[in-house]
């Protein structure tokens, strides 16, 4: 890695003593000797293992649940169903008033995705829990399902989640989060060329090396210590408090070093049920996702469909951009309504475009609920935007890098979501890229600057 100090040198004082130095990480000696403690590096006498019985169907009504054989299985201590959960219907972003509550901790009448949790078995060994789980009998009536954005939004599609009523999230602005800037129709009318293209992605797993999980130990005073690898301690504590209707002071979350997150550990899917299990059995409880669960049950990065329509002039200026962005939330909201609207502000990309129209939708399907991942709401948008930029440049016969200089935002430019650009540095990044990649551009672009023109 090279620090290119010549850029923005006037904005930077190099007078720091402890910062700006590549000091050794204090935690790494622990990592390299295997001494760093992760949540699962502890055992407790009498610990129970939680095994989740999950839906084998994308969408089904639960006719009945028969636990009689499973409960008799040797080593089983308790089996939890939705009836045991004090506040079974939840949604994690309720903490920032983004409702409605739309997801069951344990399924009640229906399952809405293949893998949804229905029954939690607690036994004194993993083996006994697995064996008992195999004896849980659930009678399902399979329902029609929708597995992608287009079929979910088609007329007459089965409703995925009744708490929403329709297969998309309803924002205060309606079916989509809107950004309206300038006059996009006027822009298209003026444009020399118009290009409309559609981009897709399928779900991506965060795949941290350490799977999601927690170990709960009752403290003996009706408080519970939960050793967890959540990415957000109080987010987990406060959601657990709501789900278990347990005052926050009864809960003690302890994290430590997490074996990678990448957004995969921001949902609250293991702690509430494990704490409840510890409370109801009086025993320490371990609930750790298998790798199979981490890959297919934990929330992935959402599948997206993005339609971009751009109006461009022969000289390279983009004069209008219209965007329809669809985020496949899966069966439940989790963080997706947030991610979809974060995308709405992002779509013009790092370019100044006078006329912008964005609609982003959060769509429900019978898939594993999606959630945050590194680059949440932005990564797939950047794929679409920057492939589109390449196509636009070729369409007008311009060098793709020079085309970006023509449109790059600079300090003082107004973005579509009505924030004035400050601290821009795109032009300088491209200038340096032109040099390191030996991708020549015209001299005038190398003389440009992100600074506000006086």
């Amino acid at each position: 890695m090279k620090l290119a100090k010549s850029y923005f040198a006037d904005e930077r004082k190099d007078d720091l003593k402890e910062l700006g130095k590549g000091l050794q990480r204090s935690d790494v000696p622990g990592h390299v000797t295997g001494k760093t403690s992760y949540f699962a590096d502890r055992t407790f006498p009498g610990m129970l293992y939680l095994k989740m019985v999950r839906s084998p169907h994308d969408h089904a009504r639960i006719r009945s649940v028969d636990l009689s054989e499973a409960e008799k299985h040797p080593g089983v201590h308790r089996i939890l169903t939705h009836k045991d959960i004090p506040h079974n219907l939840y949604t994690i972003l309720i903490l920032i008033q983004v409702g409605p509550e739309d997801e069951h901790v344990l399924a009640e009448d229906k399952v809405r995705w293949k893998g949804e949790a229905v029954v939690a078995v607690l036994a004194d060994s993993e083996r006994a829990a697995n064996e008992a789980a195999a004896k849980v009998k659930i009678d399902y009536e399979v329902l029609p399902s929708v597995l992608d954005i287009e079929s979910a939004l088609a007329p007459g599609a089965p409703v995925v989640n009744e708490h929403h009523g329709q297969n998309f999230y309803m924002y205060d602005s309606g079916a989509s989060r809107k950004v309206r800037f300038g006059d996009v129709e006027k822009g298209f009318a003026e444009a020399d060329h118009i290009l409309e293209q559609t981009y897709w992605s399928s779900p991506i797993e965060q795949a941290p090396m350490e799977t999601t999980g927690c170990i709960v130990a009752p403290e003996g005073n009706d408080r519970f210590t939960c050793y967890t690898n959540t990415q957000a301690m109080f987010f987990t504590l406060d959601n657990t408090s709501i789900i278990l209707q347990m005052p926050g002071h009864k809960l003690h979350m302890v994290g430590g070093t997490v074996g990678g997150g990448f957004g995969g550990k921001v949902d609250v899917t293991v702690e509430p049920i494990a704490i409840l299990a510890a409370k109801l059995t009086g025993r320490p409880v371990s609930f750790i996702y298998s790798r199979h669960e981490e890959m297919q049950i934990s929330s992935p990065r959402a599948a997206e469909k993005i339609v971009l329509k751009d109006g461009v002039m022969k000289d390279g200026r983009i004069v209008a951009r219209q965007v329809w962005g669809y985020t496949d939330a899966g069966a439940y909201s989790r963080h997706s309504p947030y991610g979809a609207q974060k995308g709405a502000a992002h779509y013009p990309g790092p370019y100044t475009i006078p006329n912008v129209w964005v609609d982003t939708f959060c769509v429900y399907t019978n898939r594993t609920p999606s959630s945050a991942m590194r680059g949440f709401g932005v990564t797939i948008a950047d794929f679409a935007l920057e492939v589109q930029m390449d196509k636009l440049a070729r369409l007008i016969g311009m060098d793709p890098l020079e085309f970006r200089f023509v449109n790059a935002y600079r300090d003082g430019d107004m973005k579509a979501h009505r924030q004035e650009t400050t601290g821009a540095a795109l032009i300088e990044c491209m200038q340096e890229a032109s040099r390191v990649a030996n991708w020549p551009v015209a001299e005038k672009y190398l003389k440009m600057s992100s600074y506000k023109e006086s």
Partner: protein
Amino acid sequence: MPLALKTCSTIAEAGAALKDGGARYIGGGTLVVRAANEGDVSLSTYVRSTDPVLSAIKVEAGRATLGASVTMSSIARHPDLSAIAGAAKAVGGPAIRNMATVGGNLFAPAPYGDFAVALLALDATVHTTTGDFGIEDFLAGRDGKVVASVSFDVPSAEKFRFAKISRTKPKGVSVLSIGAVLEPDANGKVKSARIALGCMADRPIRARAAEKALAGATLREEDVAPAVAAVGEGVQPITDAIASAWYRAEVLPVHFRRLLLE
């Protein structure tokens, strides 16, 4: 019931123990212990045999006999087996190669079992507790058999070719694998060929049409074209997370041609 390990001193004893419900033979553990770890409750007893014969490698008069417990890394390291080392190294990373056994590989469902592809090309004989089988017959009815060893004529390095195509490097699951034994005649043409394919069915299969088309050919682009065109005859490639049947069928001739011309 809890899991248990039953250790037998002979392969015959192990064969008998495997008749019990829930019993599975454990070689390197890469298939069976994984299944138990993943909650396969149909498995309750691991059966193993400590019979030293099972871990023996014997090479005599050009014929190799590999005990069922012989690992991929011991094959890859064996001085008399250098011609087929590439096929043994194609299996897994170093730890898996130190654990995965010849016996286990014969039972591994596609896309696993790359070494069995090599054994099929080598026309190996599989020695089981219920008799000796040609490898094709063995593969066709492998369920329930207990393997003691395999034997085959060790080819010269020039005769044996092996390719494994993966999405990830240097180690990854097979998109496909190809094993070939090419017997040259006095003029440098192919006298006879034995071609085995992995991932082109649920277990290794032979490419008989290609074998036939290669007879009498030189290993030049224009000469191998008929064999390349025929290599996909009768294949039913698997579809899995790595690749679709369509893709496997499309690239099989490409990789086969490259293997012949390398």
